[in-house]
């Protein structure tokens, strides 16, 4: 019953982590030799969900495989980009890129929160309607 909520939860955790990474990048915008961090999780989540769908579709003998484990295994990965230095002090943080990433992140977080709220509201409605 809570499968969709789990996916949203994972996404929210990853978006919050991305926020933390962006904050670290921006606070280090003048630090010589600093290389920016980034968070990768969208592709992993997508492939995990595809695997989940494939497994579900392929249960022809009626045996329900564990379809939840793949999503729960997805962890956001923090990577450090070492290339793309534009400045003589070795710092590769571009403040415009970081600010636009921050704005995108905020919108993504708000959208996920709304979806999560609506999901719970739907469950509440179903429970209440069943009472009548």
């Amino acid at each position: 019953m809570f499968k969709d909520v789990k996916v949203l939860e994972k996404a929210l955790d990853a978006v919050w982590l991305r926020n933390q990474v962006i904050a670290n990048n921006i606070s280090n915008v003048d630090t010589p030799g600093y290389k920016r961090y980034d968070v990768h999780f969208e592709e992993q989540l997508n492939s995990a969900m595809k695997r989940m769908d494939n497994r579900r579709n392929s249960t022809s003998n009626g045996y329900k495989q564990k379809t939840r484990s793949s999503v729960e295994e997805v962890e956001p990965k923090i990577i450090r980009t070492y290339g793309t230095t534009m400045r003589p002090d070795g710092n590769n943080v571009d403040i415009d890129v970081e600010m636009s990433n921050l704005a995108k992140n905020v919108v993504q977080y708000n959208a996920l929160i709304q979806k999560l709220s609506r999901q719970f509201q739907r469950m509440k409605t179903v429970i209440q309607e069943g009472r009548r």
Partner: protein
Amino acid sequence: MDIFRIFDISASGLTTQRLRMDIIAQNIANINTTRTEAGGPYRRKVTVIQENQNSKPFSQYLSESRETFTGGGVKVVEVKEDLSPFKRVYNPEHPDADEAGYVSLPNVDTLKEIVDMISATRSYEANVTVFNATKNLAMKALEIGR
């Protein structure tokens, strides 16, 4: 995951930029200082900025298997003196002129300090934006299920 770590990271950025501004202000204020306690003219000061790594005991690494991000913001390691040569101006009437009539003035270049000041201001504003955005996100998260 520690929800308030982002605020600490942004606050460290704010503190660092503010310290940079203080040093810049001191440099500009002392642009004509020919006498200091150490003798000689004022030397331009520079901040050395470094990424702040969170130092954790090893046992915490074992327990926090999920937490792989050890970013802790930024910190000022030290305030160093700029070792570039002083400016020498010919002015025999100056009380601090040497035998040849030259006065050593501080190695502070106003233009460079102003450019640094603008950069510090912009970085400060960027950190404030991150802080506000994070605060809004955290408040939004309280609205789940309401």
